[in-house]
Each structure stands twice: as C-alpha cells, then as structure tokens.
C-alpha cells in the first residue's frame, strides 16, 4: 500500500459544511462550534490587524498565519490548563487561544522581551525561532512531567520545513524511546518560506515519518477544526494516559506571505490562495456548517466582531502605551546574579549615555 493511502487525510466536516464522521457530531455541538469559530475569528482579526500595523510602521516584521486558524485554535483548545505549548513565530492563534496575553503577543513584534512572556499560570514557551529546536524542549518538558508523575502533556507546533532538521528526528526518537507525553503537531502549509514541500521531502506525507520511530501518526485536514480538535484530543489523551507521543500532520495553507518582509508572488501563484479562501477556508467551513444546521446568526457575528475589534484596539493601545524597554533588561537576566562584566558594562553604558535619555 502506498504511504499516501496509508495516511488518508482525516476529515470531520467537509468543504460543504457536512459532518462526515457522524459519531462525533454529538460532541461537536453547535455551541462548541460557535465558540471555536469565535476563537478563530479573534485570531484572524488580530492577524489582519498586525499586518495593517506593520504596514503603518507600528509593528516590525510580522509572520501572518491567516488560513491556519483551525489547526492552531483546534489543537490549543484540546489541551488542559496545566499542559504546555511550544509555539513558533507563527503560532499566535494557538498561544492566544491557550491564554497568552494579546498585548504581549503584539509586543513580540515590536521587539519587546515581554512578547515571549506568558501570563503566570500559562505554560507557553517563548516562540521558537531556530526551526525545529523547540521539538526537543517540548519532549524534555513532557518527560519532566512524566518523571514528576503528573499527567500534564506538551504540544509542540512546527512546520513542514521543520521536518528536515535533525532536531525533528532526535526529538521524535527521544520521545519514542522514553515514551514521553508529547504531541507533535505539524502544520503542513506546503511551504517553508519559498520552498514547496515537494522540494523539502520526497515523501508525500509527513505522517509517515512517525513510522521511523513507531510513533502513531495521523494526517488530518488542518482546516477542519472539528477534525483538529477531536484528533488532537485523542492524541492528548493517549499522552496523558501514558501511551506516549503522537505525530499529527495537519494539512493547511497560509494565504499570505511568509512574513511581511516576504513576497509570495515570487514563488507561488497567489490565485491558489484566492481559490482556497472560497473552498477550504477554516472559518467559512464552520460558517457553512452552522448555516446548514440553521445556527448561524448574523447578529451574533457582528456582536463578536465588535467585541473582538474592541479587545484588539485595547491591546494595541496597551502595547503602544507600554513604558519604553528597560535598559536593565539587557543586563539583569543573563545570569541570576550578574557577573562583574555585566555590572561594569552596565555602569559604563549608563555613564556614557549620561543624561541622553
């Protein structure tokens, strides 16, 4: 059997808004789907706002995720309070949903350390910038939970490109060998910057890479939040109950540029993004389903849109109102106790600056 047939894309709600795996329709109540829709919308509107802010020079380079909301929101919601998530630079929908502060999230993109710091009770790692390196951190953190005898798990995000790095391989092997409660959540958006997946790997699926480690893998429609939510829950439960890691390949699409510094028209036909908006969009799918089931409500939509817009402008205001970055942050958190070099450099720095600022 071909690999691609061994790992069919699991879907719960199809493009026409029809529930195709009816045994889960009960769990995925309209109320829950509305809630998921709202979370996705919140993420999407924030993403769009960030691009606008970047264009206005109010944010630095920004990595948008529009199109990937179902993958991120659905997986983040499958976790419990005390679990851990390990985002990349593109996983704001996930971190936001898991409880990161919107203000801090924005602050990340104006080069503020605060951007990497989650609320006290949220186990959110600083976004990983070097590709795939966080896969090992997630494995280590989950291993620690196992050693402590808790039942908390890690969920780590990474892209299709990340699967080429050695750390992906080492992370999956460690997790497999030590039977660690971690969920490897791959967002296969078909591109690593400009490099299409066909140049990244010859294999037709990412899920099949789990076979190397005897890690159960599944390939899901990453734009179908029902599939994402339920399949991630299953993986999380496997982990939580001591059955070890799972690899999830969520097939999705990033409509826009890799970052605001990138021009996707150089390497792909953007009409594909346009047509995907009309066909496979994760929000549209829920909208269609809710319409099909007569739960969709335009008033509700405009109400939540307003709420979200308000929340976003508040967060932007707060972010922009943050006191200037503190020079002490340069020196104070290198070691618990600064070395003499740091003390001396700090003193010299302030002395030379004098009253300058």
């Amino acid at each position: 059997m071909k690999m691609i047939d061994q790992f069919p894309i699991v879907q719960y709600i199809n493009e026409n808004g029809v529930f195709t795996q009816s045994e889960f329709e009960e769990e995925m109540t309209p109320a829950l789907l509305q809630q998921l829709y709202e979370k996705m919308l919140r993420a999407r509107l924030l993403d769009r706002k960030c691009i606008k802010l970047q264009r206005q020079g109010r944010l630095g380079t920004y990595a948008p995720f529009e199109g990937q909301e179902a993958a991120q929101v659905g997986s983040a919601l499958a976790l419990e309070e005390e679990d851990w998530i390990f985002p990349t630079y593109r996983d704001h929908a996930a971190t936001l949903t898991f409880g990161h502060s919107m203000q801090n999230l924005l602050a990340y993109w104006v080069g503020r350390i605060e951007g990497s710091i989650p609320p006290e009770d949220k186990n959110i790692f600083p976004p990983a910038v070097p590709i795939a390196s966080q896969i090992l951190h997630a494995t280590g953190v989950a291993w620690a939970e196992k050693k402590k005898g808790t039942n908390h798990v890690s969920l780590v995000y990474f892209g299709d490109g990340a699967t080429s790095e050695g750390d992906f391989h080492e992370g999956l092997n460690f997790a497999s060998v030590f039977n660690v409660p971690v969920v490897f959540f791959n967002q296969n958006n078909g591109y690593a910057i400009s490099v299409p997946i066909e140049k990244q790997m010859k294999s037709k699926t990412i899920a099949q890479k789990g076979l190397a480690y005897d890690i159960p893998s599944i390939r899901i429609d990453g734009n179908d939040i029902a599939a994402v939510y339920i399949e991630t829950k299953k993986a999380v439960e496997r982990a939580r109950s001591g059955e070890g890691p799972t690899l999830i390949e969520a097939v999705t699409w990033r409509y826009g540029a890799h970052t605001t510094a990138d021009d996707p028209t150089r390497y792909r036909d953007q009409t594909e993004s346009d047509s995907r908006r009309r066909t496979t969009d994760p929000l549209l799918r829920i909208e269609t389903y809710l319409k099909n089931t007569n739960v969709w409500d335009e008033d509700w939509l405009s109400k939540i849109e307003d709420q979200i817009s308000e929340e976003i402008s508040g967060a932007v205001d707060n972010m922009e109102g943050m006191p200037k970055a503190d020079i002490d942050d340069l020196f104070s958190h290198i070691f618990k106790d600064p070395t003499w070099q740091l003390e001396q450099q700090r003193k010299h720095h302030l002395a030379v600056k004098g009253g300058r600022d």
Partner: protein
Amino acid sequence: MSTSVQIKQLTMVQAITDGMKAMLEEDESVLVLGEDVGTNGGVFRATEGLIELFGEERVIDTPLAESGIMGTSIGLSVNGFKPIVEMQFLGFIYPAFNQIMTHASRMRQRSKGRFTCPIVIRAPYGAGVKAPEIHSDSSEAMFTHIPGLKVVVPSNAYDAKGLLIASVEDPDPVLFLEPMRCYRSTKVEVPENKYTVELGKAEYVKNGEDVTLLTWGAMVGDVMKAVAPLEEKLGITCDVIDLRTLYPLDKDTIEESVKKTGRVVIVHEAPESGGLSGDIISVINDTSFFYLKAPIQKVTGFDTPVPVYSLEQEYLPSMEKIQYAVKTTLSY
C-alpha cells in the same frame, strides 16, 4: 571596443550577487546552495536572478537543514565542486557547527591535502535592522577560533564583490559574513568585470596621527561618523582601519598604525568577552607593546545575547561610546 572597465552603482547586496554571478559564469564547478536561494532569490535577494541564469542544477533550493547543507557541501567540494553556501542568517548557522568545526576546516589536514573543501559560507549578520530575535547574532569570533577556516567581512559594496570572488577562488573554506546593516545603506561604484580584493589585508579607510581605530563591517561607517566631529572640532586625527579579514588578521597593518599612533580603539558589536578584540589586543601586545601610550579601548557589545530589537540600539556601539573611547585613550 575600448578596454575601459564598466562601472555600476551598486548596493552591497547587489555587489554580492554580481560576485556570485561572475564566478558562476567563469567556473562551472561553482554552485550556490541554501534555503530559498533559488526561485525566491534569497530572503535578502542576494541570489536574485541566478537560478534563471544558471538553472536549478547550479543554484539549488535545499531542504531546511543547515547541517545537511554544510555536510553535503563538504562532499560536493571534495568531489570537484565549489559550493557557495548561504546560511539564511548567522544566527542559524549553529546546527551546522559540527560540520564546519570538525570536517570542513580539518579535511585538508586530516588527509595531508588529498581532500580539500573549497567552500564559501555566506551569512548575513549583525544587529541594527530591527530583525526578529535571534536574527542579529555577531558571533564571528567563534569562527576565527576554528583552525582551517578563514573569516571575511566586507564593509562596502566594492570590497564585498572583490572579497567574495577572492573567497570563491580560495582553495580553503571561508566564512563570508555580510553585515545586514550595509546591505542597502548606500551605493558605491563597482566595476562590472571580475576583480579580487586580497584576503588577509586590512584597509586604511582614513589616515591620521593620534589614534588607531580598528573595526570591520557595519561599524566602519559608524566609526567614520564618530571621528568626523572629533577631527573637525578637536583636531584629533585618526587612522581608521577596516580589518576586512578577521582570520588571518592583517598583523602588519595593525602594527604599522599602532606604532605610529600608540593609541588604539577597537570597535565591534559582538559581546566583549570572547570577542575578537581579545585577539587584536593580543596581536598588538606581540608586535607593538612598547609603542602603546595608553590602554587599548574597546567599544563592544555587552556580555549578553544580542537583545530583541527594542533594545538593540542600546546594545550596539554608539557614536558617543566611540568618541568617548577615543577621548579616553588620549587622556593618558
């Protein structure tokens, strides 16, 4: 047809493209490899247009794996090719560290020259362009400590092309660092033909009598700006030397200038401890100890990682600090 050399006004990044193009044209064994260097022309457009001209057998989009890029390039280079490898940012070179440190740099020695690795590793580096975190590392000194590896940093478009061509022609591995701040900051005249700037040679950017300033890359411009008012208002004249090659350092030029001025300021943006200033001071100690009139002054980054960009201007050597250092060295 006249033999006069055609001149173009180019940014540094254009000059680098030009240098690669010249070598790809001249030498069939030259390859360009890296993440997004093909269709996309590189995230900084340094390889723009090359895949169209030379095809995807020679300008190669690789999988996202730095050790893989470096390790296969070692194989390619041993077997007849001259890879120009792009590391997307210097901050992402570390997964390839083992391949560079243990293999590329030692292959000639381990085989008494039977196998060699003529590879150029290009990497944008340095802070000051508001890049996201981890994109602004300035870890050149780690690489100058790798025996068998040369390290080159241009500060302007002319040198960039000439040094790059010299690096490709060099029979041994060269780390070629490209200061992001200089990529598009200015255009200078760059000959259209092929030319080289010799590795291992520093350049006097300006001449003076009182203080020697040693620096490289993006700091060269900063130093020039910093010394201008000192010169105009205070009559302090400076040698400003662009080291250009960080390994091997140009001992002779350093010695010559230090013996003349007796006063030295070293400017770099890497952390002070372990930074290249140590090596430079060591060379001065060896060659010109008795000529020194004052302790050598350093204007460097702190013993901290390059911070996120809201703080990067605090981290980078500032005009004030450079001027302060010049004045300090003259206060003795």
